[in-house]
């Protein structure tokens, strides 16, 4: 593991030095003036979004910052300024939406609470996910896990799948230890995560999906019940260990852990695979990072900007208001489309291209405001600091399999669903 020489010595994530940048994007403020009705985008389909949402976002953004999208049954917010205002303004845009599928599949976690309630849950996560703990504790564990799962990938040989034979088990094993599930396997973590995420996205109300999600939810409850007394006696640095000695309701612990299992596994897995895929498709940039480890952090940030792993998250208006000229009634269900905001040409030049050398600007991939991703530094450490440099060092001449095409898919969550790779062994 190498550290950049120009980064602060003790930051667990060696960020490359930034170029001077303009960092105050256009501000949008909700006003009480009369606004225009949101245009309806009835041409948008879920299937098209799943295949490739970006041309759709371009078309939407060019027309208006906010649309009513019947297929999604929400207003979709696609401009950077509007998305940024929503995440910084809890009073007008609540995270505690009605009829939330996430609450049904995972319980009422911090992600769907507003302050002051939210802060109690957020603070209950203590120091586990913070930079000093990462530096003093997790980095070594992530490095060992990375070796283990890269060994497994190499043992499978060229033709193995970068996502399913490496990125998924690696990030799942890291999250298992972060959470403190010493009574589960990384495979359990992957199954729990996917089935509860499927519940969260079960707009079609498919009973089979609810059954699987409920089954995983019950397994997580049982695993927590077993771990809490054990960790109270044998404390470690995990989330559950901290929670074991805290006066916090069991219901909140369960919901927060389920949300973290859902949100802490797929995203680092996806950013790891997407970044490698993008670098393999841009030989000049791949060459640059291979010659300068400090650039891996730039590649990571550009990758989450370019393809936000969490493409959309929900909010709800608490009053009638006008945002960027569009009138929204009280109780309007919004989808804040980070995948679109991060490619807003008002903020980013040539936004559709992957370019690790673009001038640094604040992207919204980790959200913002009080719900700003609690796992930001964990993700940066395990992916940019540990996995990426090792992958390119250990797999000489790594390349995509020309005979077996990779697949990138999804929009609420987007990543590589298939990525067969070759290397010189």
């Amino acid at each position, binding site marked *: 593991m190498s550290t950049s020489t120009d980064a*602060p010595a003790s930051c667990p994530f060696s960020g490359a030095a930034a170029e001077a940048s303009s*960092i105050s994007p256009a501000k949008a403020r909700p006003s009480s003036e009369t606004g225009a009705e949101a245009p309806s985008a009835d041409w948008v389909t879920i299937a098209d979004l799943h295949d490739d949402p970006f041309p759709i976002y371009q078309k939407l953004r060019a027309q208006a910052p906010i649309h009513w999208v019947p297929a999604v049954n929400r207003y979709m917010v696609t401009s950077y300024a509007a998305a940024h205002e929503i995440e910084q303004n809890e009073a007008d845009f609540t995270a505690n939406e009605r009829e939330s599928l996430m609450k049904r599949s995972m319980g009422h976690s911090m992600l769907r609470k507003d302050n002051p309630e939210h802060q109690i849950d957020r603070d209950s996560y203590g120091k586990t996910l*913070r930079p000093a703990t990462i530096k003093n504790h997790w980095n070594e564990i992530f490095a060992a896990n990375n070796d283990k799962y890269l060994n497994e990938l190499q043992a499978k040989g060229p033709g193995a799948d970068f996502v399913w034979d490496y990125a998924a088990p690696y990030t799942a094993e890291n999250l298992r230890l972060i959470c403190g599930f010493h009574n589960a396997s990384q495979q359990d973590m992957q199954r729990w995560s996917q089935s509860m995420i499927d519940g969260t996205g079960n707009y079609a109300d498919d009973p089979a999906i609810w059954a699987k999600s409920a089954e995983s939810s019950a397994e997580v409850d049982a695993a927590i019940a077993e771990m809490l007394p054990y960790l109270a006696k044998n404390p470690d640095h995990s989330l559950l260990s901290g929670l074991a000695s805290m006066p916090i309701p069991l219901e909140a612990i369960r919901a927060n852990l389920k949300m973290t299992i859902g949100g802490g596994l797929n995203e680092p897995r996806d950013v790891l695979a997407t970044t490698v895929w993008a670098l393999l498709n841009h030989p000049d940039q791949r060459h640059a990072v291979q010659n300068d480890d400090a650039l891996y952090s730039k590649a990571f940030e550009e990758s989450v900007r370019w393809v936000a792993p969490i493409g959309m998250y929900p909010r709800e208006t608490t009053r009638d208001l006008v945002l960027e000229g569009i009138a929204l009634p009280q109780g309007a269900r919004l989808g804040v489309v980070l995948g679109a905001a991060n490619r807003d040409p008002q903020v980013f030049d040539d936004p559709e291209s992957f370019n690790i050398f673009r001038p640094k600007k604040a992207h919204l991939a980790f959200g913002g405001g009080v719900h*700003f991703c609690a796992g930001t530094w964990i993700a940066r450490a395990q992916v940019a600091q540990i996995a990426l440099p090792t992958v390119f060092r250990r797999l000489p001449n790594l390349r995509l399999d020309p005979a077996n095409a990779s697949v990138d898919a999804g929009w609420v969550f987007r990543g590589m669903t298939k990525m067969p790779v070759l290397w010189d062994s």
Partner: protein
Amino acid sequence: MPTIIFSQSDQSATEIEVSEGTTLMRAAVSNGVAGIVGECGGQAMCATCHVYVDPEFSAELDEIGEDEEEMLDCTTAARTEYSRLGCQVKMSAKLARIRVSVPNEQV
């Protein structure tokens, strides 16, 4: 009410009057002061609210807390002995007319 003076590297400055208890970050963000991002809304998780506090006020500030300490190691512009996270500094009467410099880079 106490006043904060945010000065930029081009020598321009913005004066903002705030009520006691308001953080430097919140004051800057709600008034659109350039160069203070405050992406994490004050969770001490993003280090994009970094400021340099004028030396004459250093002694008046509360000590740097544990969370602030580790995050100050992750600022984009170099950390100095005057570095603070704007979201962790709350205004009080004794900080009246505090002057802080905004770094050139924040992300």
